[in-house]
């Protein structure tokens, strides 16, 4: 029971991070129908930007207040990662719109290799670790000397994720940009005829996707305290799994899928085998695609001649 509760807390935390990345996959797929393979590496880049921003703030600017530092780090990571993704979309994906089916996917794979190796070359191949930003925990429940704890950093992750999801929901459901996005998702040509700037909307989609990935990247760095250039691939695939599980194209689906993947992975590691935890996530991906390709919340894919 105690182990279960503790793993539930850990799983939800991990799932929040996956959910934030998964939204990026699902949004981009919804609007231009491509699997943005480089999204995992954009997440990794954001974690590096957060690391550098944190070091600049603490070592040079001498800011000792952790909440202020964390906010600035978050803002810096969101800004620079959005810029990166905006440029990626301009140079690597936009020229391929309307090209043959696999071209954007292959370009995205190339971009993924480029990003991770760029970080390897510029920042070195070793793991980068930082001292813990946030310490302390709340003991929720104690039984037979086994405490169930909720650490402050987990609390921060839950809170930040929830706050972002609410503002993100507002953006998509209530603003002009969100309406344009939903219009482009349904019919780009019609949206363009009605005066929606399709190019700009797609660009903004990439910017928002990157900003959410940057939040995930900052949270990842704060939670684990370590990041390396190769950390984009596996979380990227898992977040994609989450997006597929929730039904690709569906925003609530991405969040639910992320939580489910986080929970499955945590419980698998706790009760079965930690060596095969990635196998669990990959198997979920394969099983979902084979038996439930439209996911939990997605619309079935209608085949047209």
């Amino acid at each position, binding site marked *: 029971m105690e182990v279960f509760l503790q793993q539930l807390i850990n799983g939800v935390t991990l799932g929040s991070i996956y959910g934030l990345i998964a939204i990026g996959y699902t949004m981009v797929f919804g609007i231009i129908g*491509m*699997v943005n393979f480089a999204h995992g590496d954009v997440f990794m*880049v954001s974690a*590096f*930007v957060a*690391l*550098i*921003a944190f*070091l*600049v703030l603490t*070592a*040079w600017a001498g800011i000792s207040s952790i909440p202020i530092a964390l906010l600035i780090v978050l803002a*810096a990571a969101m800004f*620079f990662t959005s*810029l990166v993704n905006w440029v990626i979309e301009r*140079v*690597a994906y*936009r*020229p*391929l719109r309307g090209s*043959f*089916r*696999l071209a954007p*996917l*292959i*370009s995205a*794979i*190339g*971009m993924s*290799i*480029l990003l991770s*190796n*760029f*970080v*390897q*070359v*510029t*920042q*070195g191949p*070793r793991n*980068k*670790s*930082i*001292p813990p930003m946030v310490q302390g925990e709340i003991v929720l429940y104690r039984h037979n000397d086994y405490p169930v704890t909720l650490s402050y950093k987990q609390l921060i992750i839950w809170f930040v994720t929830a706050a972002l999801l609410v503002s993100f929901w507002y953006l998509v459901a209530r603003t002009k940009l969100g309406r344009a996005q939903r219009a482009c998702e349904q019919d780009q040509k019609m949206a363009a005829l009605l005066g929606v700037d399709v190019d700009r909307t797609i660009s903004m989609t990439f910017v928002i996707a990157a900003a959410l990935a940057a939040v995930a990247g900052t949270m990842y760095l704060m939670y684990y305290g370590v990041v390396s250039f190769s950390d984009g*691939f596996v979380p990227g*695939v898992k977040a*994609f*799994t989450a997006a*597929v599980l929730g039904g690709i194209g569906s925003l609530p689906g991405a969040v639910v899928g992320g939580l489910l993947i986080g929970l499955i992975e945590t419980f698998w590691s706790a009760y079965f085998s930690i*060596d*095969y935890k*990635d*196998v669990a996530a*990959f*198997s979920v*991906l*394969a099983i979902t*695609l*084979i038996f439930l*390709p439209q996911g939990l919340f997605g619309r079935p894919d209608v085949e047209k001649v």
Partner: protein
Amino acid sequence: MSASGDRAGEQPRAPRGPAGPIPAARAIDRLASSVREAAITAALAFGLFLPLIGFETVTNMRNEVTLKTRWPLLFAITAAVAIGRLAYMLTLGPALGRRRLRAAPAPSAWRARAGGLFVPFAIALVVLYPALVIVLNGSSGALKWIDNFGIQILIYVMLGWGLNIVVGLAGLLDLGYVAFYAVGAYSYALLAKTFGLAFWILLPLAGILASFWGILLGFPVLRLRGDYLAIVTLAFGEIIRIVLVNWVDLTNGYAGIGGIPRPTFFGIPFNAGDDGFAAVFGLEFSPLHRTIFLYYIILALALLTAYVTVRLRRLPVGRAWEALREDEIACRSLGINTTNTKLTAFAMGAMFAGFAGSFFAARQGFISPESFTFIESATILSIVVLGGMGSQIGVAIAAVIMIGGTEIMRELDFLKDIFGQTFDPTQYRMLFFGLAMVVIMVVRPRGLISRREPSVFLRERKTISADLVKEGRG
């Protein structure tokens, strides 16, 4: 960025020479817009590179991460990007814009004849390659050139041709191809070490086992659409790799399997002993013999792959693959069993990967899961895509450029004199690899050789530009 570039391209060409001076106002206008573009690009590049190039995270002696700045490098790169953009805007940009408006020229008769001679010439060159290298470099220097360049490139040519069946002909994007390569390699290593079977028995067996896995993994996933299929094959590839890492009893995990028996010359081993190859044929012992022998094995295997593919394209199953790539729904309505057709392509591609894998294990004498990561799959896929999907010549050329190019980077020691002793060109291999994938996709989305030879035709054989080919939902 690109919007005003296109606008500049639409401007009428400024007359040159004595016919008339360049209108001054237009030239200044163009210069001004180019400078503005370059300034914007510079600002973007500065923002992009500020965190990751401007700062370097260094782990110090106490294992703490500290920051160092690299302002000169950051400014140098920003300036280089700005100057490059300006030069592009003033020279190449308008010219490229004009070219895009013109129709693609028809291939000339000269090019067609040169194309016909290319294949026999290329085959003659690769057959004579070891002899050429020995003549040019002497037998001591030749080992590196035959092993690192010849064999290494040919392995990728073979893998590229194998994957070409799956991706190029059947139109199924497979991101886990390296899994079958791994199956072949581990089959050879384990069976040869456990049962002492010979290379020539295990080579077909490894191919069969790999294609068996191809069918096993392919069966449930082949009704998925293109990009979903790609991701599932990626997941399977990773699962196989994770199993290889963790099933220590069988595979020895990360430590890998060493001491794998090397292939023999039809029973005669390549060693310095009395029954060795050198002694039997009355030659002086040299490690070169085995390398040359391995070179010809992989050459024969690669040519076999190419030959089988060429023949298969003319069989009903090959035609069904290509039809499936173009339009799956039409295929189904014509009564083609799409699942079986896809499975044969998958199994065939996996079989050649299995051959290549067992060759790889025999050549290295040591294998570990490190050799079968996703990056390998992406490398093979990029070779197929960059060469032009479906074009065997294109795939071979792409393999030579990509693998040969990255191997050449190991040799560029003179760069150390320019950039300092800590500069290691091999670090930049994969960086250039990724960059090349993106650039070639943007410039030539159809790959280097984008024309397709039809295998069925009415009256005359016409090559089809791949731009006219519609990729189906495969």
